[in-house]
């Protein structure tokens, strides 16, 4: 079953999948330091930002706090889209795009890009997609699910910044005390 078709459970500190995904957590609030750093990085220009995957909206809040020109959010899961629409009601610079980031028709150029999705089978296309919608100097990061540096998309200009975290018990990542945040410059 595709992720968008699964029923999610929303708790105060996490989103959980159902048995189709082993009741795996989609996102948890211990990630806040990661989201804050990620938002700071991609919003350095205060320009046009593309966020792929809304999740709990933690990174979205941090992006908004950066005072960016525009904030486009792509989300595929219908239950999360409902929450995203409520969250965006009082935010004039937010554009919601519903669907799969690869096929939903995004053609604008962005100054900052953050990819953080779940159950995403299109990741092999992310690098070419990012290059197509990026500018020279666009800042990009993505969720690194591994407890080490991981240049999974083979970007040319990439460094990693260590972020100290304290994960709650979970089954979706092996990240322990340190998150290795990818910092890509297109």
């Amino acid at each position, binding site marked *: 079953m595709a992720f968008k078709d699964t029923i999610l459970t929303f708790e105060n500190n996490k989103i959980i999948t159902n048995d189709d995904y*082993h009741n795996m957590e989609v996102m948890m609030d211990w990630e806040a330091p990661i989201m804050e750093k990620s938002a700071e990085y991609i919003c350095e220009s205060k320009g046009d930002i593309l966020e792929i995957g809304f999740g709990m909206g933690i990174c979205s809040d941090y992006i908004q706090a950066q005072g960016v020109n525009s904030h486009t959010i792509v989300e595929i899961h219908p239950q999360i889209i409902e929450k995203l629409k409520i969250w965006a009601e009082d935010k004039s610079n937010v554009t919601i795009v519903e669907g799969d980031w690869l096929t939903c028709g995004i053609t604008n150029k962005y100054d900052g890009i953050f990819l953080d999705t*779940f159950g995403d089978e299109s990741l092999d296309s992310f690098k070419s997609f990012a290059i197509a919608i990026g500018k020279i100097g666009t800042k990009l990061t993505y969720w*690194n699910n591994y407890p080490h540096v991981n240049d999974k998309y083979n970007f040319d200009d990439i460094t990693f910044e260590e972020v100290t975290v304290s994960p709650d018990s979970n*089954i979706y990542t092996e990240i322990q005390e340190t998150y290795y945040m990818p910092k890509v410059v297109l």
Partner: protein
Amino acid sequence: MPTITASSNDGYQSSSLNSSWDAVHDHVGASNPVTNLTYSALHAIRYEYVSARGGIKYYLTRSFFDFDTSSVGSAPTEATFKLKAHTQNTCTPCIVAKSGHDPSAAATDDWFSTWITDQSVTLSGWGASDITAYSASTAMGSVDAFTDFTLNEDARDDMASLSTFKICVLHNNDYNDTAPTSGLLRTGLYWANNGTESHRPYIDYTAAEEEGEAPVSNATFFGANF
């Protein structure tokens, strides 16, 4: 044709969910095996790849069965293990392998990879050459219909030589130590505890001609005298 129904010790055991295929495939079991169900809609045989937050996770479930074969004196000339799918049948094709499980000593470390390697080979990196196949790779049949696993000579010999004949059913790629690349493949099963006798897994076999037994007439076989 004689039949032997699986004992009520049948059931399944699952691996941990892990990003390392080797860790999952070679696992000795994430929890004790489950043997008290009448059917399983999800957990019976699983071969899974889950794409999560940009990382993948593997997961396996293998099922096991044992049969009282103490009355099988000689290796049957034919034998078929018959297993009925419940709810879903997407974990396919599967294969029957020799097992060494012991439900009476259900310690986690005694199960899963340990049982089918019969504890005689290293668990690290085990593959098809390390265990005994009792059947060919076989496509799972429709839900609520029996799938027939034709048992090979090794299986039939063991039916005769062992008082308890033990088998494991696993996905063919799991047997071959090949990691999944997509999908959630799951087959549910009816177990021997099921209240409806016609749902229970069983073996039917053709008994070998016993010593001293009257020979079968060719005439009977071929419809003519020779």
